[in-house]
């Protein structure tokens, strides 16, 4: 599959702070690609450079096989949801989408229909004639998401798209993004790793402006599964657990209220592991209040970046 985005040796500094330090990345066309990184890892800087908002100090960006961002070439085909940008406060919702659509060359006769579809998509149809200023934070975010999909762009950068959305809208957006997989290439950055886990088919870990790891999500998740047991504080028979589930790593969180298991793929499914673990805990008099599957992506990310 041809890459929709190729980045080589990308570097960018803000004064003495090095935001990107020779970042390499390849995003296959049609993928839902997650960017994982701590605050200041360089995700937003990378996206902003790709969309032509920032000038790189060094390196090469190739969008859709046509070189670096050029509005004359990429307008309407590459779009971005910037992280902290505010939409013009006094514009009306539908009129603003029409303005952006006209700028990127969406045919005038198709503009109202496309705007209406997008507003319906983000559940803002009833606010089409309202002034942007009157929208809540979550609504503004949804409108900002909608503008990124104007004109069916081939490559879309979404910087923290779920930020400020209520759970219902998060679920709705997740379903809508999934439905676009394969048709469009969507690069998403988020701190909510469970969201990326549920959404993306590929992920990249970025740390201190460098690529740490890039793989299919299924390959990354193959190695570890994290299970968390909420327990009433009591002595936990860790040796017995290690013997029952070989290869798993066990730890008790500070305070003793949580038992964490990091399971290897060889341990089988979580249901099989629980069939062995829960009887041991109950026999030892450990009251189990909740069993929760944790974010394996988070665990992988923490492991991958711990050495740096």
């Amino acid at each position, binding site marked *: 599959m041809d890459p929709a985005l190729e980045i080589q040796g990308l570097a960018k500094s803000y004064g003495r702070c090095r935001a990107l330090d020779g970042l390499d990345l390849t995003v296959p066309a049609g993928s839902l690609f997650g960017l994982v990184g701590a605050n200041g890892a360089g995700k937003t800087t990378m996206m*902003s450079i790709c*969309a*032509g*908002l*920032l*000038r790189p100090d060094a390196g090469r960006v190739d969008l859709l096989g046509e070189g670096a*961002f050029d*509005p*004359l070439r*990429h*307008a*309407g085909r*590459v*779009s*971005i949801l*910037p992280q*902290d*940008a*505010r*939409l*013009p*406060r*006094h*514009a009306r919702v539908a*009129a603003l989408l029409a*303005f*952006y659509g*006209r*700028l*990127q*060359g969406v045919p005038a006769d198709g503009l109202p229909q496309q705007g209406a579809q997008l507003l319906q998509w983000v559940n803002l149809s009833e606010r089409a004639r309202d*002034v942007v200023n009157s929208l809540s934070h979550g609504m503004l975010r949804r409108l*900002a998401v909608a*503008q990124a999909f104007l004109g069916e762009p081939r490559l879309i950068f979404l910087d923290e798209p779920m930020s400020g959305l209520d759970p219902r809208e998060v679920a709705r957006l997740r379903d809508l993004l999934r439905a676009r997989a394969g048709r469009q290439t969507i690069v998403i950055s988020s701190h909510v790793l469970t969201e990326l886990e549920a959404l993306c088919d590929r992920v990249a870990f970025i740390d201190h402006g460098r690529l740490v790891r890039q793989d299919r999500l299924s390959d990354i998740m193959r190695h570890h599964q994290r299970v968390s047991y909420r327990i009433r504080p009591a002595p936990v028979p860790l040796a017995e657990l290690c013997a029952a589930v070989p290869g798993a790593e066990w730890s008790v969180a500070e305070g003793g209220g949580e038992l964490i298991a990091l399971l290897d793929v060889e341990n089988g499914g979580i249901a099989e592991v629980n069939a062995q673990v829960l009887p041991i805990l109950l026999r030892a008099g450990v009251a189990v209040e909740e069993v929760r599957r944790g974010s394996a992506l988070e665990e992988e990310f923490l492991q991958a970046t711990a050495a740096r």
Partner: protein
Amino acid sequence: MAGGRHLLRDVLTVAGQELAESLRTRRALLLLILFCGGTVAGTWAFTAFLRTVEAQLVEALGLDAGVTGGATTALWKSSFFRRVMINMAGHNADLAEALLQFTPLGLFFGWLTMSLGPWLVALSSSGRLAEEIWSGSVRFVVCRTTRLAWVCGKFLGQAVLLLVALLLSGLAAWLTGWLRIETFHGAAVLRDLLLLAPKAWVYGLAFLGLVTALSMCCRSPGVANALGVAALLGVTAAYHTARHFAGGGWRRIFDAVQLVLPNHHYFDLMRPDWTHALPAAVFLLALGLAYLVLGYARLARRDL
């Protein structure tokens, strides 16, 4: 060619959005109120002054009260008033003669709008681009069109707004004159206003280019506004300094400095004859664009 077509389309789209935004935010209304209010107040004061002068002339010369208005014309064409005008025109008799071809109200309107215009431009337009850079709303635009189209569109929108404000203030001045001056030469005044309003616009464009350029270099609208006003003061101070020190030999450099300052072209632009006014207008437009290009050179390289 296609790129040029796209550029023009995008410039017009951004300009249209800028005008719509100005109407929505009532910035346009504020600008019109300032321009028209300033013109009406100024014209009112000017006509009151004319009335007083006329009344005093009529009384001093023992004329029949019916010749009111004729007295002003007589004063306007008197040698005493010519000497006053020559002094005001920097001891340039030729220029004074040329300016006296305008009607009193026309000349006053020209002086008022050319004096007021740059200030209103500095106050209302300085922060426009910086505001969008600061809020980040420009990021939704520059991934859809070129930075050049965005800048030109913003400039064009502001320029159209300025022209409308000047034409409406001309209308306000004409109506004030019509109401206040007994022997009001409506057609002659209208001709002068229609000639001087576009000239004031061209003069204002040079300053609009300057403040827009500064706005491109700032991230904060507050700083951009302060810089706009400071630039206006700086340009005026630089002009008077250069004019003071201009002379022969190495001091010719001050003549060159004056050329790139809009104030230097003020009187040439005011003249009713096109042989002076047209080159001045072209020079001022070029100056405005040159400032804009300098600002754009910074914007094209900067992070947004």
